[in-house]
């Protein structure tokens, strides 16, 4: 839906006075506008996931006789794909470190690696959804299925958007638009990426581990 809200986090305001910070300009808080905006957006997004997770917790047990529930989960498989997603945070850190040193090539490689790991995670999710579907868990099957697919689907859309951002960064880098001075662009995308990873840890624990353990 909201692929539309592309906040122009990086639109510089080089024309403003020194007191009015675009990137590289002092701000009242000392945090650049773009980064502050990203933090606010992530704060807002926390409540989005909060609402979805609450919904899932309410509906995690399907009504008796309405089809499968959490017993479908394949914990080892999902653990591996979760691990892959977590590793992508590491490559993201390396990408930021590279551009801060001015290593544009390294930056591109690590960005692409991050996107690649994200893509593996998404492929895993698609495989998993497909497997569940074949076992009779459609989106409309029961309240658990609707809540499960919606929550993990929203997360998947977030990851996909992140992958697009990362690939766009690589593209911009090839166009010569990304350099050491613009390292903050990579850093801010990194903030988003780490957030998406952290949210997955929460989802993995709440959706997969706790219901199966209890």
């Amino acid at each position: 839906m909201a692929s539309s809200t592309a906040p122009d986090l990086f639109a510089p305001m080089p024309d403003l006075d020194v007191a009015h910070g675009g990137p590289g300009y002092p701000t009242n808080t000392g945090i650049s506008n773009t980064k502050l905006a990203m933090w606010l957006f992530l704060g807002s997004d926390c409540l989005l996931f909060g609402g979805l997770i609450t919904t899932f917790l309410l509906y995690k047990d399907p009504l008796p006789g309405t089809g499968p529930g959490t017993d479908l989960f394949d914990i080892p498989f999902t653990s591996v794909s979760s691990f892959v997603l977590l590793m992508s945070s590491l490559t993201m850190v390396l990408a930021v470190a590279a551009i801060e040193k001015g290593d544009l090539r390294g930056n591109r490689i690590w960005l692409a690696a991050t996107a690649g790991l994200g893509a593996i995670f998404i492929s895993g999710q698609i495989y998993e959804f497909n497997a569940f579907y074949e076992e009779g868990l459609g989106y409309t099957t029961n309240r658990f299925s609707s809540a499960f697919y919606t929550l993990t689907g929203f997360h998947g859309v977030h990851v996909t958007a992140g992958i697009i951002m990362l690939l766009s960064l690589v593209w911009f880098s090839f166009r010569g638009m990304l350099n050491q001075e613009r390292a903050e662009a990579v850093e801010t995308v990194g903030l988003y990426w780490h957030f998406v990873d952290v949210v997955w840890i929460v989802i993995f624990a709440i959706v997969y581990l706790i219901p199966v353990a209890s």
Partner: protein
Amino acid sequence: MALTEAEPLALPSGEPAAANDSPLGVFTRPRTATGWRSWISTVDHKKIGILYGATAIFFLIVGGLEALLIRAQLWAPRSTLLSAENYNEVFTMHGTTMVFLVVMPIGAAFANYLIPLQIGARDVAFPRMNALSYWCFLAGGIFLNSSWLLGGGADGGWFMYAPNNGVQFSPTHGIDFWVLGLIMTGIASTVGSINLIVTVLNMRAPGMTLMKMPIFTWMTLVTQFLLVFALPVITVALFLLMFDRLFDANFFDVSQGGSPLLWEHLFWIFGHPEVYLMILPSFGLVSDMLPVFSRKPIFGYPFIVFSGVAIGFMGWGVWAHHMFVSGIGPVSVTVFSLTTMFIAVPTGVKILNWTATMWGGRLRFDTPMLFSIGLITMFTIGGLSGVSHAIAPADTQQTDTYYIVAHFHYVLFGGAFFGFMGGFYFYWPKVFGYRLNESLGKWNFWVMLLGFNLTFGPMHILGLQGMSRRIYTYDAGYGFELWNKIATIGAFTLATSVAMFIFNIFWSKKKAKDLPPPGPDPWDARTIEWMIQSPPPAYNYEPIPTITHVDDFWYRKYGETEDGRLVRIAKTEDLVQAGDATDVHLPSPSYWPLVIAIGLPFLGYGLIYSLWLALLGGLVIIVGIYGWLLEPPDDPERAHGHDHEPEELPTGDREIEPGAEPLPTRDKEVETVG
């Protein structure tokens, strides 16, 4: 909202790779500063503020006509003016329109226009995002109202309780339009609120600590925080409902174990902060207007600020008072009953501080002051009836009756809207360079006050005498006839007063040609936005002022003689910026925010009618995003400030006392961030 948040990227200005004019070969970078193109491509916070205001007034007329239909239908028992079906659509759309398309956008209009001026900034932090939020709001508003032409509006009430909002109980597309339209305005509000928070936190003029900000800026800051954190919650609810309706999910299907209370909780966790975010901007305006017309500073600045912040925080802990009778259990009822009672404390503090601000002043009763006093008194009524709802047992009698309707109209009309009306009259000369006629303004106030009380006063009685809300008709023999007739007469009186305001806009504009311009400071005001030309130049300030006081402009105008008398120490025309700067470099206009927003309704219609249309909408949005990212954010060739001939300023200021000193900075003012 932001699900697939396509990551922002932009380029530093002057990058060779992006220096061409139309990166995607669609648009040249817009250059006009006048004409309609300048409006649809503008990124100037002042123009966007005006667009917000004008659009909100348009929707005010739409929502007002819906209100008149409601009142006309209830004029007599068993009236057949509207069918039950149409009535349900009309009251749903009235509530939705007034909340999302009138009160919130008027708040956004003032916030957009005033915040950069009040904090001494050139623009907001992200000017194109600002434009995007306006266009998304407009797209959402038009999309929502287009349902009238496509099979009827939503018919579940603005609160849209489940499961009555499901396809089974509302098979037309009205609710689909409602859901998708609100998601669009939600995008607008989220983008806008992030933008404004960053602006206020990061872009204040030198010396303007948080505790030196004008109170309107403070209250709007609190409002934007409420928005950032409340909107995602309603967005979740809207998505769940959309998936239920369009894709047959099971969130609110009771036969599948869906919980109607889940919707109520999600809706009101958003819905109650929503109430405060509608009223706080108006509180801010009043807190800035009362001192000007009392010629005294606001009484207890820190109390006013912190009570606003306290309302912002406590506003999160009271939502379930909308659900006292929905079966949430006695413990929850007790807890929310208590929290709701105590949120009356910071609100009461504000009322008393405003009253104390007037004490000992020299009060001028210009129209903005009349509306401010109107707010204090009318809001007090709404606040007191609010306390009676906080008492949960009493609420079991009052909730969902006309007593509630009376209560929240006293809060939102008598509170929020009276403040906005005052704000319109107060800031009109600053924004448009001409004053609204005072005599007509005073008439406007008194007619509005009369109409308002005639409309909503009787509803207290109707509610206590048992008239249920949202009923399309009532029977004779229940004692409802008299007060309904009076309320209907009141509603048409109220409509007359709104018409007077709109007439005043055009009439005064015509008359203004023969009158001297109001000048930068027509009210002898106190905050720095009155220190620049009216209307303000595109770049606002040059140079950016350094702030030493709350009410900094007043301290530049007034000082103390040796024997401690307060006197004028400087003429306004010496303090006012000339407005002739030519080397200020401004962000360039852009068409891309509009393009992205145009994609949204297509996406919406597509989800309802045909996924191909949705694909088209999605494509437009993606093109818009990449066009935006690849657009040179700034065109060094253009967008400099314009040359202004310094205007003749009206004289007749107070005599200047030679030898008087400016007042020292007060130690009490707390130094905070920045």
